[in-house]
């Protein structure tokens, strides 16, 4: 939820910052073509999922499953490297954004 809110606020900031005024124009041909293409995607994916088989019994949401404790245990034991790299990634993103969006003097 924090994530969703943060992203949303970010977008709002940018929209307010830029203040774009004109409305989009729709172009008929491309609109139709693009829609058809993604409908095809859906048609490929969805029939794959319509079946009666069910995997193993779903694990009930217990206190420990999906809890922060279990997540953290996995994160810091098995996935410590991606974790660190993700933090570097965020750092780079921050720097990049600052550089890109700076007003040039």
């Amino acid at each position, binding site marked *: 939820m924090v994530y969703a809110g943060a992203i949303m606020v970010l977008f709002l900031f940018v929209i307010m910052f830029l203040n774009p005024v004109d409305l989009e124009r729709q172009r008929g041909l491309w609109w139709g073509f693009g829609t058809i293409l*993604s409908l095809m995607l859906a048609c490929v994916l969805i029939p794959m999922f319509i079946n009666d088989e069910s995997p193993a019994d779903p694990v009930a949401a217990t206190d420990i499953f999906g809890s922060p404790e279990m997540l953290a245990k996995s994160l810091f034991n098995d996935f410590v490297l991606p974790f660190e790299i*993700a933090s570097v990634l965020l750092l780079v*993103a921050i720097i990049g954004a600052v550089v890109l969006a700076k007003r040039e003097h």
Partner: protein
Amino acid sequence: MVPLNYYLILSAVIFAIGVIGVLIRRNLIVVLMSIELMLNAVNLTFIAFSRYLGSVEGQVVVFFVMAVAAAEAVIGLAIVISVFRHRQSLDPQEMQLLKW
């Protein structure tokens, strides 16, 4: 319990909607939002499988996907700001400098 299939179909639909947005919309910010939509659809799939297979690794992946999505949204928006400053327009169809 809700069967797994429902989750999967839901995320497939959300993904498809995101794709439409990326392809059709003529506002760059909306395109970025559609990309976020696609990423979240994938997150949904991961979570569904994590629950149904009893493995916590799915959730760890979601963790990372979110981090990357955030970073990518930030950079994307910075680029949008930059582009807007130059072209005064947010329409991707007007940015065709690499045309043949």
